[in-house]
């Protein structure tokens, strides 16, 4: 993609609203002159611009040939319905005179308020001049493939495949083993999904397998794995290897349903696993129960075939523990499974003893009914922690030594069989951040910053992993892991947020879960895959800038092949071509602008958001001279959190310093150092970067943007040094959207600090 030259000169029309007090507080005539001087060919005032008549006037302007609109009214977050001219093909710059000026300035401020409004209008005109209404990339450059690839043929994968197929999409299902069904097919019974939650339910996995096999929209590949994946949403290409044969299939999106591995119980010698066959894990108990069912006999003890009269379940075996080799997390479903398995015994023989030793019994939701049903059947629940299991000799019972928490004493339970409730280990492929570290012998290269690498202690469970997806991406072959090997989203509100657009993990690779949850999750992931192909087909961005048509364009002749954009893109959207130039994959791109912020030679830009659309705003700001005692502070505010916080401050009429000029930006990661350098050279006395939280619990909507901005601050410090300016002149702050009073306070405190250190000596040069 190369930058297209804008052929026609933009025709700017400015509209000034007199409503909401703007007419009373501001000199609109003066503003009209400012707009005309700043390049607006037409300037109109209106009593209520957002009203029907006002909007009609604007449309009239477009009909008269205006290509660029500058709307001097309220915040870009207000009246969005009225001021939507996307269908009219006009580029719109919103100038925030209401929330940004009159609502945050005292009534009696006079001159400084007007100067603020003048500047914002100049900035709006400058922005408009350098922006174009975003147009989707040409249809022939978009990927239009709508097939969905599902990797994994267990319950999650089959559900994802079936749900997508039932919505009318063609699905390729790749399963590494010789049969569909995954772990689920070997279960004796499953947890109940529907009321009355009082007994184990039939295992209907075979029906699910049959439904998949009969679905005409699904093609199943057994004994197959993915040998290579390349491309982007709408135009992925996957090599599916089956034995000696590899075939290349084109697909539009991917659901990764690669399931889990059983925790290796042989790491629990204290529980006698491996020392006696009469200590089994939950999967092994399922096999015993199935065998018993097939033989029409009681569940038999593996060592001698004797009917099990007593069974002890050890909850949290090797889980919820910080011991080396244990899982630090809870697998979420083992309590329910043990309840179900205890019922296997009690439902066959009410005289059999089934004892579940637990610390916290976790049966959420209607699981409580199931728990209660087990109690009514006579399953014993013992609150305690198992310390060790001793194998009996010569057919004697096993001895389970535990701390009884109720009696607060050590106790022993004897049983014919012991079941260890061990956990799930995510089958989520290669930990790409660990691989990078090992290969390069240095810290994180994908820009996560120091905080995350500190958190990434070696996985508590080390299992040999092979790549699931074999992505040929610059940033590694699999989805990035979040924690404990899970490929989950970091966002509570957005569980399907993925760092590889068009690829959605579901089921146990995301977090430990039972079948019911995995099926629900798989359905959600199938929707996201469908959404990805639909959006890619229209050239639109995926979440969180859903529907955005702009995409980064790149000027090849200026590029120095420094690779920073390819390394820093939080979504792995940029590859390298054979000559080492960045290769943008537009439908992987999330339009955050991190690449634009990274580029030292400023060759990356969006149609409506570029080095110029912001840089020219900075240049448009009128800079009073040193002796005016009117400092100027530039605030680059994240549009997701900091900017709304300022808007809400305005709604609460919280005032802040009149010398700041706020520019909303897509993400702190998109801040190019040239803006800062230019602003300092132009005489700005201070620069505030307001972004989201970084680090382990990052809030940045583009994952690493905020962290990158802080890292880049190091380079800005060098600039300050060279210019012999105080380091305080540029500061980055973490703010939250709810910091309604705090953000104005930060601004005021910072302005006071600037007052203290004095004016920028570069003013007037």
């Amino acid at each position, binding site marked *: 993609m190369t930058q297209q030259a804008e052929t026609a000169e933009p025709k700017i029309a400015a509209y000034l609203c007199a*409503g909401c007090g703007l007419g009373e507080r501001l000199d609109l005539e003066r503003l009209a002159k400012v707009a005309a001087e700043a390049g607006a060919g037409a300037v109109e005032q209106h009593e209520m611009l957002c009203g029907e008549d006002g909007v009609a006037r604007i449309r009239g302007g477009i009909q008269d040939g205006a290509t660029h609109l500058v709307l001097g009214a309220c915040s870009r977050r207000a009246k969005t319905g009225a001021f939507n001219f996307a269908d009219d093909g006009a580029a719109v710059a919103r100038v925030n005179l209401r929330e940004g000026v009159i609502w945050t300035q005292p009534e009696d401020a006079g001159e400084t308020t007007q100067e603020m409004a003048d500047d914002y209008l100049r900035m709006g005109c400058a922005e408009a001049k350098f922006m174009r209404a975003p147009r989707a990339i040409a249809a022939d450059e978009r990927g239009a493939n709508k097939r969905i690839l599902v990797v994994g043929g267990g319950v999650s994968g089959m559900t994802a495949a079936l749900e997508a197929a039932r919505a009318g999409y063609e699905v390729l299902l790749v399963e590494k083993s010789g049969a569909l069904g995954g772990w689920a097919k070997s279960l004796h019974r499953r947890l109940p999904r529907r009321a009355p939650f009082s007994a184990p339910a039939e295992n209907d996995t075979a029906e699910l397998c049959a439904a998949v096999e009969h679905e005409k929209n699904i093609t199943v590949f057994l004994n197959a794995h993915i040998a290579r994946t390349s491309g982007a949403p709408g135009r992925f290409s996957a090599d599916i290897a089956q034995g000696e044969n590899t075939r290349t299939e084109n697909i539009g999106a991917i659901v990764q349903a690669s399931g889990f591995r059983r925790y290796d119980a042989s790491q629990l010698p204290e529980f006698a696993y491996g020392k006696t066959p009469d200590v089994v894990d939950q999967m092994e108990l399922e096999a015993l129960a199935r065998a018993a069912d097939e033989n029409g006999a009681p569940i038999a003890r593996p060592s001698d075939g004797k009917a099990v009269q007593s069974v002890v379940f050890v909850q949290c075996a090797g889980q919820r523990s910080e011991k080396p080799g244990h899982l630090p997390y809870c697998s979420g479903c083992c309590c329910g499974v043990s309840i179900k398995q205890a019922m296997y015994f009690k439902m066959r023989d009410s005289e059999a003893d089934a004892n579940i030793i637990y610390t916290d019994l976790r049966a959420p939701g209607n699981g409580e009914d199931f728990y209660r049903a087990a109690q009514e059947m006579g399953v014993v629940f013992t609150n305690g922690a198992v310390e060790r299991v001793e194998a009996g000799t010569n057919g004697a019972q096993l001895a389970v030594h535990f701390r009884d928490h109720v009696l607060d004493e050590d106790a022993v339970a004897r049983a014919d069989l012991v079941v260890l409730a061990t956990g799930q280990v995510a089958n989520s492929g290669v930990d790409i951040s660990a691989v990078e570290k090992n290969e390069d012998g240095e810290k994180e290269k994908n820009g996560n910053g120091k905080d995350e690498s500190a958190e990434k202690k070696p996985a508590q469970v080390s299992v040999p992993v092979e790549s699931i997806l074999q992505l040929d991406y610059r940033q590694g072959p699999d989805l990035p892991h979040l924690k404990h090997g899970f490929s989950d989203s970091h966002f509570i509100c957005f569980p399907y947020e993925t760092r590889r657009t068009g690829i959605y993990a579901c089921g146990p690779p995301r977090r430990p879960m039972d079948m019911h949850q995995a099926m629900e999750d798989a359905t959600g992931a199938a929707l*996201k895959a469908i959404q990805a192909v*639909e959006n890619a087909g229209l050239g639109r961005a995926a979440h969180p800038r859903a529907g955005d048509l702009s995409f980064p364009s790149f000027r090849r002749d200026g590029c120095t092949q420094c690779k920073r954009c390819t390394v820093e893109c939080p979504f792995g959207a940029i590859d390298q071509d054979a000559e080492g130039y960045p290769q943008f994959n537009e439908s992987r791109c999330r339009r955050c602008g991190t690449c634009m912020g990274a580029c030292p030679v400023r060759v990356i830009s969006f149609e409506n958001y570029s080095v110029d659309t912001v840089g020219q705003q900075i240049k448009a700001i009128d800079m009073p001279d040193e002796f005016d005692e009117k400092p100027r502070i530039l605030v680059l505010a994240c549009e997701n959190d900091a900017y709304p916080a300022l808007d809400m401050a305005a709604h609460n009429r919280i005032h802040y310093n009149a010398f700041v000029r706020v520019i909303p930006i897509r993400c702190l990661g998109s801040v190019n150092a040239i803006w800062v350098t230019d602003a300092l050279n132009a005489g700005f006395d201070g620069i505030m970067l307001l972004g989201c939280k970084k680090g382990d619990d990052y809030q940045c909507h583009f994952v690493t943007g905020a962290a990158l901005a802080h890292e880049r601050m190091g380079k800005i410090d060098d600039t300050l040094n060279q210019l012999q300016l105080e380091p305080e002149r540029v500061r980055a702050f973490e703010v939250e959207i709810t910091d309604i009073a705090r953000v104005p306070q930060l601004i005021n405190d910072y302005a006071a600090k600037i007052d203290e250190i004095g004016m920028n000596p570069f003013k007037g040069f």
Partner: protein
Amino acid sequence: MSEVATNQTILVAGGGISGMTAALEAAECGKEVVLVEKRAALGGRVSQLYKYFPKMCRPHCGQEINQRRIRANRRLRVLTLAEITKLRGAPGDYTATIKIAPRHVNSNCTACGDCASAVSAEIDSPHDYGMRKVKAAYLPHNLAWPQRYVIDASIAGGEQGAAARDACRYGAVDLDMREETIELKCGAVIFATGWRPYDAAKIQPYGYARYDNVVTSVEFERMLDPYGPTGGKLLRPSDGAEAKDVAFVQCAGSRDRNHLAHCSRVCCMASLKQSMYVGECYGEDARATIYYIDIRGIDRFEDFERQVRADERVRFVKSKVARIEQNADGSPVLHGVDTHGARRYANTHDLAVLAVGMQPSVDANEVFEEGATSVDASGFIQARDGENGNDGVFAAGCAADALDVNRSVQSATAAALRAIQVVNRAARA
């Protein structure tokens, strides 16, 4: 609206995080969606929370993103102050009856606030569970969307309403608005009607109705909001004293056949989170005690539980609290038996927070035609296993189960696909 909806429209009931998600996910797949919200603004219960577990971040950050997605999507239309009262028909061909309450403010509203300045009458703030008063002309909360005021029905017919109307320079106040009922065609329906807190007054031994210093977990959330009833200060309702020693009473109504038979899932995590709030307010002086049956810090939440357990200011007592009494200075005294060691206790705290259970907020049986869907004993809407694995009515989020936010959003995303399957079938037919 009724003219444009067709049998390929997906109707979503409820504009909380589940409903917003279901509506957006479907609309962003290119489907026509109508979202119906009973309150005056979107966001639901999540917008009333101070922070989320386990990240301790603000729910409003995601709400802003969702609202921006809604503003940007023309396939998605939102009706506020509206409720589905009846649904009839079959998959691919439903007719919903929707009752719309009057806002008394039309789309001219610029949210300038002149009406509120002109009005002196006050009402209980719906956003704050009635814990404070707001003007009867109000914006529901800071992040409210639609960004449009509401003139409360209590003043619409009187002088105060007239004052609001006269103060508005944009003709936005319309006192003649009346409740209206419309019918809407749609092909599939997603019920994302959410939950309500169990009525704590029904748990008689806990004295919620008798003692000021026994509050619910949802009220506690509001106390932390800087724009809430206490301005973000953790103070005792009885005397305004600092509440530095707070008791959290788990399973208040949940896991109890006399109240809610099910486990509400989120309350353990919510109380762990709220114990951190006490620390946030009072630092080293903070004390929190969590009285619990089982701590259900399920799956990766274990990390958060471990973090809270490592905090010396937080104490855990394995016990179902038997009763709460009040001492002379109004402090709640909790009585019960500590299961660990079987010891009786009578512990005095500054404030007791009841971790109240979740129950579905809408009785689906009243809305649906008989047999259109089924609910379980707790009132949650069950998935139906009809032809092709579903019917045309789906539940999302806490209408389907007691779920946390993350799981609600997963559930809503899944529901969106099931609805899409139905309207796609209708389109092909």
